[in-house]
C-alpha cells in the first residue's frame, strides 16, 4: 500500500512499546471464528495500472463532450468557470472536515456563510442552510419540516415535480402516519389551480410545486401562496436556481421553503452526483432548518469570526430529538456553487439565465416548424421543453444516437400517458451550429 508509512522495523518497535508480542494480541477481543475471512478481491494495482484502468473504463463511455447532448430532466450541462474548478480543488478545502474547530476552519466557515448569503439572495428567502444531500432529499426534509411544523398529516405534491423527487418523498414518508397526495397537471403541463383549491383542507401540511417544472414550464403561481397560507399550510417551492436570475424567485412567489437541486450552479453532471441540495426558509422557520448553519459572531478578542451555530437542532447534541439526522452534507458542492455565483456576479447571474432561455426558445421555435414534431407554444419555458414526436421516440433516439446526438429524455417511462414525448434541453453550452445540426437531424427523421 503506497499510503502507509510504518516500516517493518517500526512496527516491531511499536508493538514492543505497546507491550505485546504480536499484532494478534491487539485484536484478541475479536472472536477467533470471525477472524481472517476469505476475501476474494483482485490483487492490488500500482498507480500506473490504476491510471491505465481508469482511462480504459473512461473510453467505454460516450460522454456529453463526445456527443451533442440535449439531455436535461434534472441534470444540466453547463459551462463551469475554470477559476471555480481551481478553487474547489484547493487541498485545504478538499481534505478538511466539518468545521468543528472554528479557529482551524475560518476558510470553510466564511465560504459557507457566503454561500448561505448568496442562496438567500437568489431564492429571495431569509435563511439558508450549509447544504443538503441533493434536491430530492432536501425536498423530502422540507416535507418533514412542514408536517412537523403544522402538525398536519398530508403533503400535496404536484405531479409535474421531478419524478425522482416525488418518489423520494414517498419513500421517506412510507410507513409513517404521513400521507402524500398528487396534484395533476393540465394539457400544457401546468399545475391546476382548481384542483389545488379543492384539495386544500385542514389535513394539508404543505404543498410542493416545481418551477420551472419537470416539463420545463415556468409555473404562474399568482395568488397561490395566499391560498395555501390561508389554509394554514406551508408552500414549498423547488426549481432550477439558475432560472431565478430571470424568473420569479420562490421568495417572490411567497414560498415558505425553497428546497431543491443546485447542480446547475457550477457542478458537473457526473452521472448524477455529487450534487447540491439547497434549503432556504423564511425567518419563521429558522430553528426548524435541517443541517449545518454557519453564523457570524465575535471571537474572544472582539474580532469578527464565523462558527457553526444553532447546533442544538442537530443530532450530535440532541440525538433522537434532533430535527434531522443529517451529519455530513455536501459542503464542497456548496463551495463550488459559492465560487460559481461569485464569479458570475450580479450581472452574470441574470445573463446566464437569459442565454439559457434564448437557446431553448430558438430551438423550440425551430423544432415547432418540423413536420414530424409538435411543440406546445403556450408554456413559458426556461431552458427545457416538451416535444411530441409523431413517430416512435425509440426510433428517433436510435437514429440520432447514430449521428452522435443525445436527443433528450423520454417522458413515457415517467408518465406512461405521455407517449413518444420527450424533454429537450438547450443551455448556454450549445452554439447556433449545434442547435441547427440537431434540428436538421430531427428533420431527417
Amino acid at each position, binding site marked *: *500500500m503506497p*499510503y*502507509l508509512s*510504518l516500516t517493518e522495523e517500526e512496527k516491531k518497535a511499536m508493538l514492543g512499546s*505497546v507491550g505485546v508480542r504480536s499484532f494478534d494480541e*491487539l*485484536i484478541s477481543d*475479536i472472536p477467533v471464528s470471525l477472524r481472517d*475471512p476469505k476475501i476474494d*478481491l483482485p490483487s492490488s494495482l500500482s498507480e500506473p495500472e490504476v*491510471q491505465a*484502468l*481508469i482511462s480504459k473504463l473512461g473510453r467505454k*463511455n460516450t460522454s*456529453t463532450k463526445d456527443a451533442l447532448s440535449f*439531455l436535461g430532466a*434534472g*441534470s444540466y450541462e453547463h459551462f463551469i*468557470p475554470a477559476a471555480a474548478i481551481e478553487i474547489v480543488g484547493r487541498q485545504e*478545502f*478538499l481534505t478538511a472536515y*466539518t468545521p*468543528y*474547530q472554528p*479557529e482551524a476552519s*475560518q*476558510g470553510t466557515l466564511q465560504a459557507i*456563510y457566503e454561500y448561505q448569503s448568496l442562496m438567500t*439572495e*437568489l431564492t429571495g428567502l431569509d*435563511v439558508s442552510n450549509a*447544504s443538503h*444531500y441533493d434536491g430530492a432529499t432536501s425536498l423530502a426534509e422540507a416535507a*418533514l419540516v412542514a408536517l412537523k411544523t403544522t402538525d398536519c398529516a398530508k403533503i400535496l405534491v404536484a405531479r409535474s415535480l421531478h419524478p425522482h423527487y416525488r418518489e423520494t418523498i414517498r419513500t421517506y414518508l412510507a410507513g409513517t402516519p404521513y400521507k402524500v397526495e398528487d396534484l395533476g397537471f393540465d394539457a400544457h403541463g401546468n399545475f391546476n389551480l382548481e384542483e389545488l383549491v379543492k384539495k386544500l383542507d385542514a389535513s394539508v401540511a404543505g404543498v410542493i410545486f416545481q418551477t420551472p417544472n419537470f416539463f420545463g414550464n415556468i409555473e404562474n403561481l399568482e395568488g397561490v401562496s395566499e391560498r395555501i397560507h390561508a389554509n394554514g399550510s406551508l408552500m414549498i417551492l423547488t426549481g432550477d436556481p439558475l432560472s431565478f436570475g430571470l424568473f420569479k424567485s420562490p421568495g*417572490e412567489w411567497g414560498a415558505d421553503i425553497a428546497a431543491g*437541486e443546485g447542480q446547475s450552479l457550477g457542478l458537473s453532471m*457526473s452521472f*448524477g452526483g*455529487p450534487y447540491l441540495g439547497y434549503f432556504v426558509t423564511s425567518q419563521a422557520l429558522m430553528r426548524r432548518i435541517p443541517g449545518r*448553519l454557519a*453564523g*457570524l*459572531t465575535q*471571537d474572544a478578542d472582539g*474580532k469578527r*469570526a464565523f*462558527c457553526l451555530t444553532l*447546533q442544538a437542532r442537530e443530532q450530535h447534541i440532541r*440525538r433522537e430529538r434532533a430535527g434531522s*439526522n443529517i*451529519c*455530513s452534507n*455536501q459542503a464542497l458542492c456548496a463551495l463550488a456553487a459559492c465560487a460559481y455565483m*461569485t*464569479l458570475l*456576479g*450580479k450581472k*452574470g447571474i441574470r445573463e446566464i439565465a437569459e442565454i439559457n432561455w*434564448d437557446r431553448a426558445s430558438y430551438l423550440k421555435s425551430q423544432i415547432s416548424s418540423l413536420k414530424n414534431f409538435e411543440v406546445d407554444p403556450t408554456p413559458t419555458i426556461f431552458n427545457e421543453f416538451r416535444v411530441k414526436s409523431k413517430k416512435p421516440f425509440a426510433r428517433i433516439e436510435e437514429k440520432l444516437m447514430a449521428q452522435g446526438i443525445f436527443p433528450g429524455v423520454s417522458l413515457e417511462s415517467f408518465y406512461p400517458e405521455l407517449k413518444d414525448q420527450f424533454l429537450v434541453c438547450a443551455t448556454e453550452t450549445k452554439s*447556433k451550429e449545434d442547435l441547427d445540426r440537431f434540428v436538421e437531424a430531427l428533420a431527417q427523421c
Partner: protein
Amino acid sequence: MLISQDDRLSFEKSKPGRRAVRLPKARFSGADPLKDIPKGLLRQTLIGFPEMSEPDIVRHFINLSRKNFSVDTHFYPLGSCTMKYNPKVNEWAARQEKFTALHPLQTEATAQGMLQILWELEEGLKEISGMDRFTLQPAAGAHGELTGMMLVRAYHASRGGPTRTKVLVPDSSHGTNPASAALFGYHVVEIKSNAQGGVDLEDLKQHLDEHVACLMLTNPNTLGLFEKNILEITKLVHQCGGLLYYDGANLNPLLGIARPGDMGFDIIHINLHKTFSTPHGGGGPGSGPVGVKKHLIPFLPGPLVEQTKKGYGWASQSAKSIGRVKLFHGNVGVMIRAFAYLKTLGKEGLRKVSEAAILNANYMKEMLKDTFKVATSGPCMHEFVLSLKSFSTQGVHAGDVGKRLLDYGFHAPTVHFPMVVPEALMIEPTETEARETLDLFIAAMKEIALEIATDPEKVKNAPYTLPVRRPNDVLAARKPILSYRDQLREKLLAAEIAA
C-alpha cells in the same frame, strides 16, 4: 504576512460595475425577455449579488483556503471521522471528463465504463463486508442509516407479526443513530454500556421483546472497542425477531480482519468518505452505500446495477423495493474515488491498512496513558478515548486541550464525545500517519499537560496562533446572523437605535 488580513466578505469587496466571468453576447432567438416573457413571471430585482473581478475573487478564495487545517497540511486525528490520506490518483480519476461529463440518464450502452465501476465497487464492498447486495444511493452515513431504518420497517411489515416500534442503540452510539431511527418514527431506546465500555448484555436483554425492530451498533464502538460479545448480541436480537444494523463508520480497523456480515448483521452502511479514503470536502460530499443480507435484497432502493450478456445495465426495480432515497444514482464522483482506492488496496492491502490503523492507535494510547486517563482498559482498535476529568480542578476542559493542540499544529481530536465518557478526547490517528507524526503529537500532549499544571490559563485561552480565538458561539446562537443580509439588517437596527 503569509495570509491576507483582508478578511472581508465578497459582498463587502463588491463594487458596482465590476465583473469576473463574461458570457457570450450573441442571441439566437431574436426574442427579448422583457417583452416576450409575461411580466408576472419575471424576477423583479436581484440586488444583493456581489460584483468583483476574477483576480480578486481568486485571491479571496485562495486566501480563505489558507485559513483551514486539512489532512493535506496537518495531522487531523478527529476520532470517529477517519481522516486518513485522500489519495491523489482518486481525485485524478474522478476528474476525468469521461466521468464528469456523463449525464445520469444516458443510455446504458453509452455508459458501460461507468456502470462497470459501480458494479465492481459493489462487488468489492460485498466481499469486504460479507453482505450480499448494496445500494449505492445514500449520500452519507446518516442517509444510509435512514435507508436502513426504512429497510427494517419494510422487512417487518412484509412479514406481518407484531408491530415493532423500538430501535435499540447503545448510549455510546453516534448521534446520527438515534436521530435516524427517530426521524423515521421509531421509538429509540438507549442501552447502557458496561464497565468495560461495551454493550451491557443484561440491560440489552431487558429491552429485548417482540417490539424490537432493530439494534443499531457500531463495532468497534465509539470507545474504540470491539464488542467481545458480538456473536451473542446478534444472536439475542435475532432470537426476538429483531434485525441488526451495523453503522460502518468504524469499518477501517476491520478490513480483512473480520466482516460485519459474518457477525450476524443484516444491514450495514459504509462511509466511503472514511474507510474508502475519499476526501471530506469541509463537511461532504460523502457516500454511504447500504448493504444487506439476502433476505433484505428485495427491499433495497432501486435501481441497482446488474451484469447481463450485453454488459452492464440497470436492473428493473423489485416490487418490494422501498423506492429510491435520492435523485439519480448517488454521489457517483465519490464512488469513482472509492473504486480507485479499492483497486489500489486489492486483496493484499486490506489487512495492511487495518493493522497499521490499530497499531498506530495502540501506540499513541500507550504513550499517553501515563499522562492522561484512558477511558478503557486493554488494547483498543483504531481509536481510543481519553478522559480529561482530572483537569477539571484546574478548570481545564477537554475542549481547551483541543484548542491548545491547534497551536502545536495539530487538528483537535473529537472533543466531548462519546458522551458516556466525561471530558472525552477521542483520538483516531489512522493508518496513513508516520510514527514521527504520532511522536510529535504525543510530545505536544505531554507539554500541554505540563502547561495545565503550571499555567492553566494558557490552555484555557488558547489558541494564539490562528486567525481567530474562541468565536463566541453563545452569542452566535442567541442572535443568529446567518447571511450578509442579516448583517445589513443588524447594522440598520443599530443605527436606528443610535438615532
